């Protein structure tokens, strides 16, 4: 069954690709890679002007970690669009139904099977994870770390919560939708708001840069965590499509 699906429908090419075709593809790929590698090796590396530019402008960026400075100040527009990518994926995998919009975001219920170890673990781990992700976010200004790492950690907490079985998330609830867009909305708001002081979109005033970056990062962390939990939900729990079919099938059997 599984093989059928992958062979007949979802594959770009059939599995029983003839050996000769494979050989040709392989040779082309190898030749292309060899050419790439050769030209990379032969190239005499020049000076990189951006190294000094990043270092010399770091003081005005509002943060001390150069990667964070690039992500959220120098090239913040890329990051803004990246948050939009996350929103697209969230919308794509979201199990939409109009009825669920009135239900609350988090539903607490009695789990089918209780895992005492996991529960005890969670009671201690959950606060620790949240504190750690806050710490990662905070230190992102100085040390490696930042919104994405913190968001991933926070999402880990959400997924553990889900696995424990007490809670389930309804991503059609207004709160959930707010969480999904808050990162993008805050980014846009700050990006447009600074026009008032600096006259240029996304150009933070130097004095407030650190604070504004932190605001954006907090909002982005929340969205990232929400999107990641949603991704996990969409794959983990029930697929979105044919629930009626499935129920019917169970009746038959």
């Amino acid at each position, binding site marked *: 069954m599984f093989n059928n699906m992958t062979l007949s*429908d*979802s594959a*770009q090419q059939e599995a029983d690709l003839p050996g000769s075709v494979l050989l040709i593809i392989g040779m082309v790929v190898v030749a*292309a890679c060899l*050419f*790439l590698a*050769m*030209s*990379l090796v*032969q*190239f005499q*590396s*020049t*000076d*990189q*002007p*951006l190294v000094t*530019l*990043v270092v010399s*402008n770091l003081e005005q960026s509002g943060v001390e970690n150069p990667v964070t400075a690039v992500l959220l*100040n*120098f*090239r*913040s*527009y*890329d990051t803004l*669009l*990246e948050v*939009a*990518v996350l*929103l*697209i*994926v969230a*919308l*794509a995998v*979201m199990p*939409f*139904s*109009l009825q669920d*919009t009135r239900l609350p975001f988090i539903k607490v219920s009695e789990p089918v099977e209780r895992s005492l170890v996991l529960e005890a673990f969670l009671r201690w781990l959950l606060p620790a994870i949240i504190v750690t992700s806050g710490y990662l976010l905070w230190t992102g200004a100085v040390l490696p770390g930042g919104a994405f790492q913190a968001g991933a950690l926070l999402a880990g907490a959400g997924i553990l919560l889900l696995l424990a079985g007490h809670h389930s998330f309804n991503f059609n609830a*207004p709160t959930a*939708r*707010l969480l*999904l*867009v808050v990162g*993008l*909305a805050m980014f*846009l708001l700050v*990006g*447009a708001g600074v026009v008032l002081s*600096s006259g*240029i*979109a*996304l*150009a*933070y005033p130097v004095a407030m840069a650190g604070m504004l970056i932190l605001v954006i990062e907090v909002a982005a962390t929340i969205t990232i965590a929400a999107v990641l939990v949603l991704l996990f939900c969409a794959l983990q729990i029930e697929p979105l*499509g044919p629930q009626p079919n499935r129920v019917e099938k169970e009746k038959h059997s």
Partner: protein
Amino acid sequence: MPVIDVASLLPLLIAIPLIGAIFSVLLSTKYAQVLIGLLSALALVLVIGLILVNLPSVDTEFTTPLRYVLAGWEAPLGIALSLDGFSALLLSLTVFLVTVLTFYSAFYFAASPARVRFWPLWWLLVAGINALFLSADIFNVYVTLEIIGLAAVALVALSGNKAGLTAALRYLLVGLLGSLCYLLAVALLYHVYGTLDFAQLAAKAESNPLSWAALALITVGLVLKTALVPLHFWLPHAHGSAPAPVSAILSALVVKASFYLLVRFWMEILAPAVTNEALMLLGILGGTAILWGCVQALRAKRLKLMVAYSTVAQIGYLFLLFPLLMSTEEASASQLAAQQQSALAAVSYFIVAHACAKAAMFIAAGNIIHSLGHDDIAKLQGMAKYMPLSLFTFAIAGGSLIGLPPSAGFIAKWLLLNVAIDTHQWWWVVIILTGGLLAALAIFRVLDQAFIKPEQASDHVAPDNWQKVPVAMPVSGLALALCTMALGFNADLIIDLIAIEGGE
């Protein structure tokens, strides 16, 4: 002296659709989403109108593109938006089509639960397309390509049936692979030239192995996304199984977005690394695409699939741009520039003509599916009696695709033929004319069924599965089809806009 600083309007073209997307996520009731959609479209029209009005005309000194430095950091450290004649044309086209299709979608998705997801994704897709046309940074382009790719896939998957999902998955995998090829090229270019900015790269670029490798990777990646033969295999099913407004925007704009980038790289950014042989190769692939797409369109059994295959053929015409850019030994630099300019003008005209005609066709096909529940060409007998507007739209748009005068398609082909003859590449003339003939056969096959056999209609159209569509749906298609006619009469508009770039 312009009244306002035009450049400062550029970010709005990206911000407006993003805001529209945010609000359509938050307010998911039917009327709120439609209202948000219409307001966003209106705002976009206003902004692009302001930009076009304030754009310096050809006569004045306007040799450099408009530039807006985001975040106040000049390139190479920061990212800039830029606008020249070519991108201004494509942006205007985008805003125009998006407005019409937004209006259409308001009716198309009126009763469908898919609208909850459609509207935010729609505005994110529009934001991606606008961002791509405005971008002046090769890495930023990668992010916009991903926005477009992922949003387009999500929209194709809205149909929810197995064929649609499978087509979406294949489209997604192809898109991801294409983006990665492009990204590897970005890595190489950044390594060699130390900048990501279009203009700075163009100034520094030279012909060396890494530039060739980067150009080859970019071309493979973007050709995959543009669906040029032989890498077109994903397009017909993705475009053929999406909801009608999505098919329309995919064929009209999304494939053009990656083509636009190819033009940027081949004509400007990496122009020194381009060789005549490479240009010829793209031309040959384009010629093959024209013939192959037309033949497949003739063989297609479903109307939407036929329209999608016609897109494959039309993409082929776009790639005829490249051989027409070739330099010859006797031509001077200024002659070459003039030749390239007229080739670009012809192809830009082609893009606009095809976008309007193809969007109109997909709308017409969507209306037919909406009322019949199928789009089997063999079962369309006598449909003209029931859906006169949709089939009239189909006929006009088809006329433009074939290249019948006085449509925009005719002017586009005429311009292209002129350049081909001027550059002594007569074989393209043969291919363009053959392509027109084959397209005519494909279109007339449908019209023949729909118009000429009314007496058999009663046997085939069961009145009980017949659904009337709101009159606004065929009307928006007809508006687009009539635009192809109007453009045929006002060819100067577009050619002048492209000429703004001529200073370079």
